[in-house]
Protein backbone atom coordinates (compact mmCIF):
# COMPACT_ATOMS: atom_id res chain seq x y z
CA UNK A 1 0.00 0.00 0.00
CA UNK A 2 1.20 3.50 -0.79
CA UNK A 3 2.10 5.81 2.06
CA UNK A 4 -0.33 8.68 2.57
CA UNK A 5 2.15 10.71 4.56
CA UNK A 6 5.88 10.32 4.34
CA UNK A 7 8.02 12.47 6.62
CA UNK A 8 11.75 12.32 6.14
CA UNK A 9 14.29 13.55 8.72
CA UNK A 10 12.10 16.50 9.71
CA UNK A 11 13.63 19.00 12.11
CA UNK A 12 13.21 22.49 13.49
CA UNK A 13 15.43 24.57 15.73
CA UNK A 14 14.42 27.63 17.71
CA UNK A 15 17.71 29.43 18.14
CA UNK A 16 19.99 26.72 19.54
CA UNK A 17 17.17 24.47 20.71
CA UNK A 18 16.35 21.53 18.50
CA UNK A 19 12.65 21.10 19.29
CA UNK A 20 12.25 18.30 16.78
CA UNK A 21 15.20 16.51 15.27
CA UNK A 22 15.40 13.84 12.59
CA UNK A 23 11.72 12.87 12.78
CA UNK A 24 10.66 10.13 10.36
CA UNK A 25 7.26 8.60 9.91
CA UNK A 26 5.34 6.81 7.21
CA UNK A 27 1.59 6.52 7.51
CA UNK A 28 -0.39 4.19 5.28
CA UNK A 29 -3.70 5.15 3.75
CA UNK A 30 -6.66 4.54 6.07
CA UNK A 31 -4.35 3.96 9.05
CA UNK A 32 -4.90 5.19 12.59
CA UNK A 33 -1.50 6.31 13.75
CA UNK A 34 -0.60 7.48 17.24
CA UNK A 35 2.07 9.95 18.29
CA UNK A 36 2.85 9.78 21.99
CA UNK A 37 5.51 11.01 24.33
CA UNK A 38 6.04 12.84 27.62
CA UNK A 39 5.09 16.50 27.98
CA UNK A 40 7.40 18.78 26.03
CA UNK A 41 8.59 15.99 23.75
CA UNK A 42 7.66 18.02 20.64
CA UNK A 43 4.46 16.29 19.55
CA UNK A 44 2.47 19.46 18.92
CA UNK A 45 5.52 20.98 17.24
CA UNK A 46 5.39 18.09 14.76
CA UNK A 47 1.74 18.93 14.09
CA UNK A 48 2.63 22.58 13.61
CA UNK A 49 5.33 21.57 11.15
CA UNK A 50 2.96 19.31 9.23
CA UNK A 51 0.29 22.02 8.96
CA UNK A 52 2.63 24.85 8.03
CA UNK A 53 2.39 26.88 11.24
CA UNK A 54 6.19 26.49 11.52
CA UNK A 55 8.56 26.07 8.60
CA UNK A 56 10.92 23.14 9.09
CA UNK A 57 14.66 23.87 9.17
CA UNK A 58 15.42 20.47 7.69
CA UNK A 59 13.76 17.44 6.15
CA UNK A 60 10.77 17.04 3.92
CA UNK A 61 7.06 16.18 4.09
CA UNK A 62 5.28 14.33 1.30
CA UNK A 63 1.50 13.98 1.29
CA UNK A 64 0.32 11.43 -1.25
CA UNK A 65 2.35 12.47 -4.29
CA UNK A 66 2.80 16.13 -3.30
CA UNK A 67 5.86 17.49 -1.62
CA UNK A 68 4.35 20.00 0.80
CA UNK A 69 7.52 21.05 2.62
CA UNK A 70 7.63 24.77 3.29
CA UNK A 71 4.07 25.60 2.20
CA UNK A 72 1.96 27.86 4.40
CA UNK A 73 -1.17 26.89 6.35
CA UNK A 74 -3.56 27.94 3.61
CA UNK A 75 -1.80 25.93 0.90
CA UNK A 76 -1.39 22.86 3.10
CA UNK A 77 -5.07 22.92 4.01
CA UNK A 78 -5.87 22.99 0.30
CA UNK A 79 -3.49 20.07 -0.30
CA UNK A 80 -5.49 18.05 2.22
CA UNK A 81 -4.26 18.17 5.81
CA UNK A 82 -6.78 19.22 8.46
CA UNK A 83 -6.28 19.37 12.19
CA UNK A 84 -7.89 19.93 15.55
CA UNK A 85 -6.25 21.71 18.46
CA UNK A 86 -5.17 20.70 21.93
CA UNK A 87 -7.07 23.62 23.47
CA UNK A 88 -10.29 23.81 21.46
CA UNK A 89 -10.26 26.55 18.85
CA UNK A 90 -13.74 27.05 17.49
CA UNK A 91 -15.17 30.18 15.94
CA UNK A 92 -16.92 30.87 19.19
CA UNK A 93 -19.30 33.63 18.07
CA UNK A 94 -20.47 31.79 14.95
CA UNK A 95 -23.22 29.20 14.93
CA UNK A 96 -22.42 25.49 14.89
CA UNK A 97 -23.52 25.33 11.26
CA UNK A 98 -21.41 28.32 10.25
CA UNK A 99 -18.36 26.77 11.89
CA UNK A 100 -18.63 23.85 9.51
CA UNK A 101 -19.46 26.13 6.58
CA UNK A 102 -16.22 28.04 7.17
CA UNK A 103 -14.52 24.67 6.86
CA UNK A 104 -16.24 24.24 3.48
CA UNK A 105 -14.97 27.66 2.35
CA UNK A 106 -12.37 26.43 -0.14
CA UNK A 107 -14.47 23.57 -1.50
CA UNK A 108 -17.58 25.56 -2.43
CA UNK A 109 -16.72 28.86 -4.01
CA UNK A 110 -18.55 31.96 -5.15
CA UNK A 111 -17.17 35.47 -5.31
CA UNK A 112 -17.71 38.29 -2.83
CA UNK A 113 -19.83 40.08 -5.43
CA UNK A 114 -22.07 37.03 -5.82
CA UNK A 115 -22.57 37.24 -2.07
CA UNK A 116 -23.39 40.94 -2.04
CA UNK A 117 -25.85 40.78 -4.94
CA UNK A 118 -27.36 37.42 -3.94
CA UNK A 119 -26.97 35.95 -7.42
CA UNK A 120 -28.47 32.56 -8.34
CA UNK A 121 -24.99 31.12 -7.98
CA UNK A 122 -24.88 32.38 -4.39
CA UNK A 123 -28.21 30.73 -3.60
CA UNK A 124 -27.27 27.46 -5.25
CA UNK A 125 -23.90 27.14 -3.56
CA UNK A 126 -25.19 28.28 -0.17
CA UNK A 127 -27.81 25.54 -0.37
CA UNK A 128 -25.14 22.99 -1.26
CA UNK A 129 -23.05 24.19 1.67
CA UNK A 130 -26.00 23.96 4.06
CA UNK A 131 -26.75 20.41 2.97
CA UNK A 132 -23.12 19.32 3.13
CA UNK A 133 -22.60 20.95 6.54
CA UNK A 134 -25.77 19.41 7.95
CA UNK A 135 -24.85 15.95 6.72
CA UNK A 136 -21.45 16.32 8.41
CA UNK A 137 -23.06 17.50 11.63
CA UNK A 138 -25.42 14.56 11.49
CA UNK A 139 -22.51 12.14 11.58
CA UNK A 140 -21.56 13.63 14.95
CA UNK A 141 -25.17 13.96 16.19
CA UNK A 142 -24.77 17.72 16.20
CA UNK A 143 -27.41 18.59 13.59
CA UNK A 144 -29.93 19.38 16.33
CA UNK A 145 -27.63 22.11 17.61
CA UNK A 146 -26.99 23.73 14.23
CA UNK A 147 -28.24 27.18 15.28
CA UNK A 148 -26.46 27.20 18.65
CA UNK A 149 -23.52 29.49 19.15
CA UNK A 150 -20.43 27.28 19.12
CA UNK A 151 -19.27 28.55 22.51
CA UNK A 152 -22.57 27.41 24.08
CA UNK A 153 -21.98 23.73 23.28
CA UNK A 154 -20.81 21.39 26.04
CA UNK A 155 -17.13 20.52 26.01
CA UNK A 156 -17.41 17.06 24.48
CA UNK A 157 -19.52 18.36 21.62
CA UNK A 158 -17.14 21.24 20.98
CA UNK A 159 -14.46 18.57 20.41
CA UNK A 160 -16.74 16.80 17.94
CA UNK A 161 -17.58 20.05 16.19
CA UNK A 162 -13.87 20.73 15.77
CA UNK A 163 -13.47 17.35 14.08
CA UNK A 164 -16.51 18.04 11.88
CA UNK A 165 -15.03 21.39 10.84
CA UNK A 166 -11.71 19.75 10.02
CA UNK A 167 -13.48 17.11 7.92
CA UNK A 168 -15.37 19.83 6.07
CA UNK A 169 -12.12 20.87 4.38
CA UNK A 170 -12.22 17.46 2.68
CA UNK A 171 -8.78 16.34 3.90
CA UNK A 172 -6.71 13.30 3.02
CA UNK A 173 -5.07 13.30 6.43
CA UNK A 174 -6.65 14.30 9.72
CA UNK A 175 -4.49 15.36 12.66
CA UNK A 176 -6.07 15.17 16.11
CA UNK A 177 -4.18 16.90 18.93
CA UNK A 178 -5.14 15.28 22.24
CA UNK A 179 -8.78 14.70 21.35
CA UNK A 180 -9.53 13.07 24.72
CA UNK A 181 -8.00 15.82 26.88
CA UNK A 182 -10.34 16.74 29.71
CA UNK A 183 -12.80 13.93 29.04
CA UNK A 184 -14.14 11.41 31.52
CA UNK A 185 -13.89 7.63 30.77
CA UNK A 186 -17.40 7.50 29.26
CA UNK A 187 -16.74 10.43 26.98
CA UNK A 188 -13.41 8.91 25.98
CA UNK A 189 -15.16 5.67 25.09
CA UNK A 190 -17.62 7.60 22.92
CA UNK A 191 -14.77 9.52 21.31
CA UNK A 192 -13.00 6.28 20.40
CA UNK A 193 -16.11 5.15 18.58
CA UNK A 194 -16.34 8.52 16.85
CA UNK A 195 -12.75 8.34 15.65
CA UNK A 196 -13.24 4.82 14.32
CA UNK A 197 -16.43 5.96 12.63
CA UNK A 198 -14.61 8.86 10.97
CA UNK A 199 -11.91 6.55 9.67
CA UNK A 200 -14.38 4.04 8.24
CA UNK A 201 -17.05 6.41 6.96
CA UNK A 202 -14.74 8.96 5.36
CA UNK A 203 -11.98 6.49 4.47
CA UNK A 204 -9.68 8.78 6.41
CA UNK A 205 -6.06 8.55 7.43
CA UNK A 206 -5.67 9.78 10.99
CA UNK A 207 -2.63 10.81 13.02
CA UNK A 208 -3.36 11.57 16.64
CA UNK A 209 -1.52 12.80 19.68
CA UNK A 210 -2.80 11.38 22.95
CA UNK A 211 -1.85 10.86 26.57
CA UNK A 212 -4.75 8.57 27.38
CA UNK A 213 -3.16 5.12 27.00
CA UNK A 214 -6.54 3.41 27.00
CA UNK A 215 -7.52 5.32 23.88
CA UNK A 216 -4.13 4.84 22.26
CA UNK A 217 -4.01 1.10 22.82
CA UNK A 218 -7.68 0.82 21.91
CA UNK A 219 -7.64 2.36 18.47
CA UNK A 220 -4.14 3.02 17.14
CA UNK A 221 -2.67 0.61 14.62
CA UNK A 222 0.88 1.83 15.03
CA UNK A 223 2.70 4.28 17.27
CA UNK A 224 5.65 6.59 17.31
CA UNK A 225 7.07 7.64 20.67
CA UNK A 226 8.76 10.99 20.80
CA UNK A 227 11.13 12.03 23.57
CA UNK A 228 13.16 15.25 23.72
CA UNK A 229 12.33 15.94 20.10
CA UNK A 230 13.63 12.60 18.83
CA UNK A 231 11.97 9.35 17.87
CA UNK A 232 12.39 6.92 20.74
CA UNK A 233 10.48 3.97 19.36
CA UNK A 234 8.29 3.15 16.39
CA UNK A 235 6.13 0.13 15.60
CA UNK A 236 2.99 -1.86 16.38
CA UNK A 237 1.02 -0.40 19.28
CA UNK A 238 1.34 -3.28 21.74
CA UNK A 239 5.06 -3.79 21.09
CA UNK A 240 5.81 -0.13 21.60
CA UNK A 241 3.74 0.26 24.75
CA UNK A 242 5.54 -2.63 26.43
CA UNK A 243 9.00 -1.53 25.42
CA UNK A 244 11.13 -0.91 28.52
CA UNK A 245 12.63 2.29 27.09
CA UNK A 246 9.18 3.75 26.48
CA UNK A 247 8.01 2.84 29.96
CA UNK A 248 11.14 4.47 31.33
CA UNK A 249 10.55 7.67 29.36
CA UNK A 250 7.04 7.93 30.75
CA UNK A 251 7.58 6.77 34.32
CA UNK A 252 11.22 7.62 34.91
CA UNK A 253 13.78 5.25 36.39
Amino acid at each position, binding site marked *: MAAMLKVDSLGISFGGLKAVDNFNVEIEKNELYGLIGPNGAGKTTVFNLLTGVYQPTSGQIVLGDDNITGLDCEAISKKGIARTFQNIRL*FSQLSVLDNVKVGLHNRHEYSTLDGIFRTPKFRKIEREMDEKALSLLKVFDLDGFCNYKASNLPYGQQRKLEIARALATDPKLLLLDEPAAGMNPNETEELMNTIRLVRDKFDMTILLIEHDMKLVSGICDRLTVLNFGQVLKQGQTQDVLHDPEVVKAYLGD
Partner: protein
Amino acid sequence: MDKVIAEKKKITRSNLITFAMVIIAYVIVEIMINTGNVSSLFKGLLVPLCIYSILAVSLNLVVGISGELSLGHAGFMCIGAFASSTWSMIMKSTSMPEGLRFFIAIVIGAVTAAFFGFLIGIPVLRLKGDYLAIVTLAFGEIIKNLVNALYFGIDANGLHFSLEDSMHLNMDGGTIIIKGAQGITGTPKNSNFTIGVILLLIVLFIVLNLINSRTGRAVMAIRDNRIAAESVGLNATKFKLLAFTISAAIAGVGGVLYAHNLSSLQALPKNFGYNQSIMILVFVVMGGIGNIRGSVVAAVVLTVLPELLRGLSDYRMLIYAVVLILMMLCTSAPSWIQYRERIMMSFGKNKKVNGKESN
Protein backbone atom coordinates in the same frame (compact mmCIF):
# COMPACT_ATOMS: atom_id res chain seq x y z
CA MET B 1 -32.70 21.62 7.09
CA ASP B 2 -35.91 23.18 8.46
CA LYS B 3 -33.97 24.70 11.30
CA VAL B 4 -31.43 26.14 8.89
CA ILE B 5 -34.13 27.67 6.72
CA ALA B 6 -35.87 29.09 9.81
CA GLU B 7 -32.60 30.70 10.90
CA LYS B 8 -32.07 32.16 7.44
CA LYS B 9 -35.56 33.60 7.44
CA LYS B 10 -34.83 35.16 10.83
CA ILE B 11 -31.74 36.87 9.45
CA THR B 12 -33.61 38.04 6.35
CA ARG B 13 -36.41 39.43 8.50
CA SER B 14 -33.93 41.22 10.73
CA ASN B 15 -32.29 42.79 7.65
CA LEU B 16 -35.66 43.81 6.24
CA ILE B 17 -36.54 45.48 9.54
CA THR B 18 -33.34 47.51 9.27
CA PHE B 19 -34.23 48.67 5.74
CA ALA B 20 -37.84 49.33 6.75
CA MET B 21 -36.73 51.46 9.68
CA VAL B 22 -34.64 53.69 7.45
CA ILE B 23 -37.37 53.99 4.82
CA ILE B 24 -40.11 54.72 7.37
CA ALA B 25 -37.93 57.33 9.07
CA TYR B 26 -37.32 58.88 5.65
CA VAL B 27 -41.03 58.97 4.76
CA ILE B 28 -41.97 60.50 8.11
CA VAL B 29 -39.32 63.20 7.78
CA GLU B 30 -40.35 63.95 4.19
CA ILE B 31 -43.98 64.30 5.25
CA MET B 32 -42.96 66.59 8.10
CA ILE B 33 -40.88 68.73 5.75
CA ASN B 34 -43.72 69.02 3.24
CA THR B 35 -46.23 69.98 5.91
CA GLY B 36 -43.76 72.54 7.26
CA ASN B 37 -43.30 70.99 10.68
CA VAL B 38 -39.51 70.93 10.57
CA SER B 39 -37.30 73.69 11.96
CA SER B 40 -34.42 74.89 9.83
CA LEU B 41 -32.05 73.64 12.51
CA PHE B 42 -33.35 70.12 12.11
CA LYS B 43 -33.31 70.40 8.32
CA GLY B 44 -29.60 71.15 8.49
CA LEU B 45 -29.11 67.97 10.49
CA LEU B 46 -30.68 65.62 7.95
CA VAL B 47 -27.65 65.10 5.72
CA PRO B 48 -25.20 64.79 8.66
CA LEU B 49 -27.50 62.12 10.06
CA CYS B 50 -27.02 60.08 6.88
CA ILE B 51 -23.28 60.78 6.86
CA TYR B 52 -22.76 59.61 10.44
CA SER B 53 -24.98 56.57 9.95
CA ILE B 54 -22.91 55.56 6.93
CA LEU B 55 -19.67 56.12 8.83
CA ALA B 56 -20.94 54.16 11.83
CA VAL B 57 -21.87 51.21 9.60
CA SER B 58 -18.49 51.47 7.90
CA LEU B 59 -16.55 51.40 11.17
CA ASN B 60 -18.71 48.59 12.52
CA LEU B 61 -17.50 46.47 9.63
CA VAL B 62 -13.95 46.83 10.93
CA VAL B 63 -14.58 46.88 14.68
CA GLY B 64 -17.50 44.48 14.96
CA ILE B 65 -17.13 42.09 12.07
CA SER B 66 -13.40 42.08 11.47
CA GLY B 67 -12.63 42.61 15.16
CA GLU B 68 -9.94 45.24 14.77
CA LEU B 69 -10.04 48.61 16.49
CA SER B 70 -9.49 51.38 13.94
CA LEU B 71 -9.29 54.99 15.11
CA GLY B 72 -8.51 56.51 11.73
CA HIS B 73 -11.84 56.48 9.99
CA ALA B 74 -12.15 60.26 9.85
CA GLY B 75 -9.00 60.10 7.71
CA PHE B 76 -10.73 57.97 5.06
CA MET B 77 -13.71 60.29 5.22
CA CYS B 78 -11.29 63.17 4.59
CA ILE B 79 -9.80 61.44 1.55
CA GLY B 80 -13.24 60.74 0.10
CA ALA B 81 -14.31 64.32 0.73
CA PHE B 82 -11.31 65.98 -0.89
CA ALA B 83 -11.00 63.58 -3.84
CA SER B 84 -14.66 63.95 -4.80
CA SER B 85 -14.75 67.66 -4.14
CA THR B 86 -11.71 68.19 -6.38
CA TRP B 87 -13.46 66.30 -9.17
CA SER B 88 -16.62 68.34 -8.77
CA MET B 89 -14.64 71.58 -8.83
CA ILE B 90 -12.83 70.59 -12.02
CA MET B 91 -16.03 69.54 -13.76
CA LYS B 92 -18.17 72.39 -12.40
CA SER B 93 -17.48 74.62 -15.39
CA THR B 94 -18.13 71.89 -17.98
CA SER B 95 -21.52 70.97 -19.35
CA MET B 96 -21.66 67.60 -17.62
CA PRO B 97 -25.13 66.97 -16.13
CA GLU B 98 -25.15 67.55 -12.38
CA GLY B 99 -26.54 64.12 -11.53
CA LEU B 100 -23.88 62.28 -13.51
CA ARG B 101 -21.14 64.51 -12.09
CA PHE B 102 -22.22 63.76 -8.53
CA PHE B 103 -22.53 60.05 -9.26
CA ILE B 104 -18.97 59.98 -10.58
CA ALA B 105 -17.90 62.06 -7.56
CA ILE B 106 -19.29 59.36 -5.26
CA VAL B 107 -17.46 56.65 -7.18
CA ILE B 108 -14.21 58.65 -7.11
CA GLY B 109 -14.56 59.30 -3.38
CA ALA B 110 -15.17 55.61 -2.65
CA VAL B 111 -12.39 54.34 -4.91
CA THR B 112 -9.78 56.81 -3.66
CA ALA B 113 -10.59 56.07 -0.03
CA ALA B 114 -10.54 52.32 -0.78
CA PHE B 115 -7.14 52.71 -2.45
CA PHE B 116 -5.68 54.46 0.60
CA GLY B 117 -7.42 52.00 2.89
CA PHE B 118 -5.72 49.20 0.99
CA LEU B 119 -2.30 50.90 1.09
CA ILE B 120 -2.55 51.67 4.80
CA GLY B 121 -4.06 48.28 5.56
CA ILE B 122 -1.06 46.36 4.22
CA PRO B 123 1.35 47.43 6.97
CA VAL B 124 -1.23 48.23 9.65
CA LEU B 125 -3.13 44.93 9.66
CA ARG B 126 0.02 43.09 10.70
CA LEU B 127 -0.57 44.63 14.10
CA LYS B 128 -3.17 43.61 16.62
CA GLY B 129 -5.38 45.23 19.21
CA ASP B 130 -4.08 48.40 20.87
CA TYR B 131 -1.12 48.71 18.51
CA LEU B 132 -3.40 48.68 15.48
CA ALA B 133 -5.60 51.32 17.09
CA ILE B 134 -2.60 53.57 17.73
CA VAL B 135 -1.22 53.24 14.22
CA THR B 136 -4.58 53.84 12.52
CA LEU B 137 -5.01 56.87 14.76
CA ALA B 138 -1.65 58.15 13.57
CA PHE B 139 -2.52 57.52 9.92
CA GLY B 140 -5.78 59.40 10.32
CA GLU B 141 -3.88 62.40 11.67
CA ILE B 142 -1.21 62.16 8.96
CA ILE B 143 -3.85 62.20 6.22
CA LYS B 144 -5.61 65.18 7.76
CA ASN B 145 -2.38 67.16 8.19
CA LEU B 146 -1.14 66.30 4.70
CA VAL B 147 -4.37 67.48 3.12
CA ASN B 148 -4.22 70.56 5.31
CA ALA B 149 -0.86 71.46 3.77
CA LEU B 150 -1.71 70.42 0.21
CA TYR B 151 -1.97 72.88 -2.65
CA PHE B 152 -3.43 71.64 -5.88
CA GLY B 153 -4.17 73.48 -9.08
CA ILE B 154 -4.99 72.79 -12.69
CA ASP B 155 -4.08 74.77 -15.80
CA ALA B 156 -3.45 74.24 -19.49
CA ASN B 157 -0.20 72.37 -18.70
CA GLY B 158 -1.93 69.83 -16.47
CA LEU B 159 -2.01 69.20 -12.73
CA HIS B 160 0.20 70.93 -10.16
CA PHE B 161 0.86 69.81 -6.57
CA SER B 162 2.72 71.53 -3.79
CA LEU B 163 3.05 71.11 -0.05
CA GLU B 164 4.46 74.62 0.52
CA ASP B 165 2.28 77.40 -0.83
CA SER B 166 0.35 78.44 -3.90
CA MET B 167 3.44 80.14 -5.44
CA HIS B 168 5.24 76.81 -5.64
CA LEU B 169 2.54 75.44 -7.92
CA ASN B 170 4.12 77.35 -10.86
CA MET B 171 0.73 77.86 -12.33
CA ASP B 172 0.24 79.27 -15.79
CA GLY B 173 -3.16 80.84 -15.28
CA GLY B 174 -5.69 78.15 -14.54
CA THR B 175 -7.40 77.65 -11.19
CA ILE B 176 -6.15 76.63 -7.80
CA ILE B 177 -8.56 74.08 -6.37
CA ILE B 178 -7.13 73.06 -2.99
CA LYS B 179 -5.64 76.05 -1.18
CA GLY B 180 -3.81 74.43 1.72
CA ALA B 181 -5.40 75.21 5.06
CA GLN B 182 -8.18 77.15 3.35
CA GLY B 183 -9.21 73.93 1.64
CA ILE B 184 -11.74 73.92 -1.16
CA THR B 185 -14.37 76.62 -1.46
CA GLY B 186 -17.36 76.56 -3.75
CA THR B 187 -18.04 72.83 -3.90
CA PRO B 188 -21.46 72.39 -5.54
CA LYS B 189 -24.09 71.54 -2.95
CA ASN B 190 -25.29 68.23 -4.41
CA SER B 191 -25.96 66.33 -1.20
CA ASN B 192 -29.49 66.19 0.04
CA PHE B 193 -31.50 64.04 2.38
CA THR B 194 -32.89 61.78 -0.35
CA ILE B 195 -29.48 60.98 -1.80
CA GLY B 196 -28.14 60.46 1.71
CA VAL B 197 -30.86 57.95 2.52
CA ILE B 198 -30.38 56.14 -0.79
CA LEU B 199 -26.65 55.85 -0.16
CA LEU B 200 -27.31 54.65 3.39
CA LEU B 201 -29.64 51.97 2.05
CA ILE B 202 -27.06 50.88 -0.53
CA VAL B 203 -24.37 50.74 2.15
CA LEU B 204 -26.64 48.72 4.43
CA PHE B 205 -27.46 46.38 1.55
CA ILE B 206 -23.78 45.79 0.79
CA VAL B 207 -22.68 45.36 4.39
CA LEU B 208 -25.56 43.16 5.55
CA ASN B 209 -25.29 40.90 2.51
CA LEU B 210 -21.53 40.74 2.86
CA ILE B 211 -21.80 39.64 6.49
CA ASN B 212 -24.22 36.85 5.61
CA SER B 213 -22.12 35.42 2.81
CA ARG B 214 -19.10 33.17 2.46
CA THR B 215 -16.75 36.15 2.66
CA GLY B 216 -18.38 37.59 5.78
CA ARG B 217 -18.26 34.23 7.49
CA ALA B 218 -14.57 33.97 6.72
CA VAL B 219 -13.91 37.46 8.14
CA MET B 220 -15.80 36.62 11.33
CA ALA B 221 -14.06 33.25 11.62
CA ILE B 222 -10.70 35.01 11.47
CA ARG B 223 -11.91 37.45 14.12
CA ASP B 224 -12.94 34.59 16.43
CA ASN B 225 -9.85 32.47 15.99
CA ARG B 226 -7.15 33.35 13.54
CA ILE B 227 -5.06 30.20 13.99
CA ALA B 228 -8.04 27.90 13.48
CA ALA B 229 -9.17 29.94 10.48
CA GLU B 230 -5.75 29.54 8.88
CA SER B 231 -5.81 25.82 9.62
CA VAL B 232 -8.97 25.42 7.51
CA GLY B 233 -7.30 27.26 4.65
CA LEU B 234 -8.38 30.88 5.02
CA ASN B 235 -5.94 33.62 4.12
CA ALA B 236 -6.29 35.83 7.19
CA THR B 237 -4.43 38.82 5.75
CA LYS B 238 -6.49 38.82 2.58
CA PHE B 239 -9.84 38.83 4.35
CA LYS B 240 -8.81 41.40 6.93
CA LEU B 241 -7.55 43.64 4.14
CA LEU B 242 -10.77 43.12 2.18
CA ALA B 243 -12.94 44.16 5.13
CA PHE B 244 -10.69 47.14 5.86
CA THR B 245 -10.74 48.30 2.22
CA ILE B 246 -14.51 48.00 1.90
CA SER B 247 -14.90 49.87 5.16
CA ALA B 248 -12.58 52.64 3.93
CA ALA B 249 -14.55 52.90 0.68
CA ILE B 250 -17.80 53.32 2.61
CA ALA B 251 -16.19 55.94 4.86
CA GLY B 252 -15.12 57.68 1.63
CA VAL B 253 -18.76 57.78 0.51
CA GLY B 254 -19.61 59.44 3.82
CA GLY B 255 -16.89 61.97 3.02
CA VAL B 256 -18.37 62.66 -0.43
CA LEU B 257 -21.73 63.46 1.14
CA TYR B 258 -19.99 65.65 3.67
CA ALA B 259 -18.01 67.60 1.08
CA HIS B 260 -21.04 68.23 -1.12
CA ASN B 261 -23.15 69.35 1.81
CA LEU B 262 -21.06 72.41 2.64
CA SER B 263 -19.73 75.02 0.27
CA SER B 264 -16.35 75.21 1.98
CA LEU B 265 -14.28 72.21 2.91
CA GLN B 266 -11.25 72.38 5.20
CA ALA B 267 -9.19 69.61 6.76
CA LEU B 268 -9.66 70.95 10.27
CA PRO B 269 -9.26 68.78 13.37
CA LYS B 270 -12.94 69.54 14.03
CA ASN B 271 -13.99 67.90 10.74
CA PHE B 272 -11.59 65.05 10.19
CA GLY B 273 -9.54 64.83 13.36
CA TYR B 274 -9.22 62.50 16.26
CA ASN B 275 -12.47 63.58 17.90
CA GLN B 276 -14.42 62.75 14.77
CA SER B 277 -12.93 59.24 14.67
CA ILE B 278 -13.73 58.74 18.33
CA MET B 279 -17.26 59.98 17.79
CA ILE B 280 -17.82 57.38 15.07
CA LEU B 281 -16.42 54.76 17.41
CA VAL B 282 -18.86 55.94 20.09
CA PHE B 283 -21.74 55.34 17.66
CA VAL B 284 -20.48 51.82 17.06
CA VAL B 285 -19.97 51.03 20.73
CA MET B 286 -23.29 52.52 21.79
CA GLY B 287 -25.14 50.73 19.02
CA GLY B 288 -23.53 47.45 19.91
CA ILE B 289 -20.31 46.13 18.40
CA GLY B 290 -21.20 43.97 15.40
CA ASN B 291 -24.80 45.22 15.39
CA ILE B 292 -25.30 47.12 12.13
CA ARG B 293 -28.82 48.32 12.87
CA GLY B 294 -27.70 49.50 16.29
CA SER B 295 -24.97 51.61 14.68
CA VAL B 296 -27.52 53.48 12.59
CA VAL B 297 -29.82 54.04 15.56
CA ALA B 298 -26.96 55.19 17.78
CA ALA B 299 -25.63 57.53 15.09
CA VAL B 300 -29.05 59.14 14.69
CA VAL B 301 -29.76 59.43 18.41
CA LEU B 302 -26.33 60.77 19.28
CA THR B 303 -26.38 63.30 16.45
CA VAL B 304 -29.86 64.59 17.21
CA LEU B 305 -29.51 64.63 20.99
CA PRO B 306 -26.69 67.19 21.26
CA GLU B 307 -28.59 69.48 18.90
CA LEU B 308 -31.69 69.23 21.06
CA LEU B 309 -29.54 70.00 24.09
CA ARG B 310 -27.91 72.86 22.29
CA GLY B 311 -27.40 74.82 25.50
CA LEU B 312 -25.10 72.05 26.67
CA SER B 313 -23.28 71.66 23.38
CA ASP B 314 -20.01 72.84 24.92
CA TYR B 315 -20.12 69.80 27.14
CA ARG B 316 -20.95 67.40 24.33
CA MET B 317 -17.67 65.52 24.34
CA LEU B 318 -17.75 65.46 28.12
CA ILE B 319 -21.19 63.88 28.07
CA TYR B 320 -19.99 61.36 25.47
CA ALA B 321 -17.12 60.36 27.70
CA VAL B 322 -19.35 59.95 30.73
CA VAL B 323 -21.95 57.99 28.75
CA LEU B 324 -19.25 55.72 27.32
CA ILE B 325 -17.80 55.01 30.75
CA LEU B 326 -21.26 54.33 32.16
CA MET B 327 -22.04 51.98 29.27
CA MET B 328 -18.82 50.06 29.77
CA LEU B 329 -19.39 49.81 33.51
CA CYS B 330 -22.94 48.74 32.95
CA THR B 331 -22.06 45.98 30.52
CA SER B 332 -18.72 44.70 31.88
CA ALA B 333 -18.05 45.65 35.54
CA PRO B 334 -18.89 42.62 37.73
CA SER B 335 -20.46 44.67 40.52
CA TRP B 336 -22.76 46.46 38.07
CA ILE B 337 -23.71 43.20 36.40
CA GLN B 338 -24.54 41.71 39.79
CA TYR B 339 -26.63 44.75 40.64
CA ARG B 340 -28.47 44.47 37.31
CA GLU B 341 -29.06 40.77 37.82
CA ARG B 342 -30.41 41.42 41.31
CA ILE B 343 -32.90 43.86 39.89
CA MET B 344 -33.87 41.39 37.16
CA MET B 345 -34.15 38.64 39.76
CA SER B 346 -36.44 40.69 41.93
CA PHE B 347 -38.66 41.30 38.92
CA GLY B 348 -38.59 37.60 38.12
CA LYS B 349 -39.49 36.72 41.70
CA ASN B 350 -42.40 39.10 41.71
CA LYS B 351 -43.71 37.46 38.59
CA LYS B 352 -43.43 34.02 40.13
CA VAL B 353 -45.11 35.16 43.33
CA ASN B 354 -47.87 36.73 41.32
CA GLY B 355 -48.20 33.55 39.33
CA LYS B 356 -48.61 31.52 42.50
CA GLU B 357 -51.18 33.90 43.86
CA SER B 358 -53.23 33.71 40.72
CA ASN B 359 -53.23 29.94 41.05
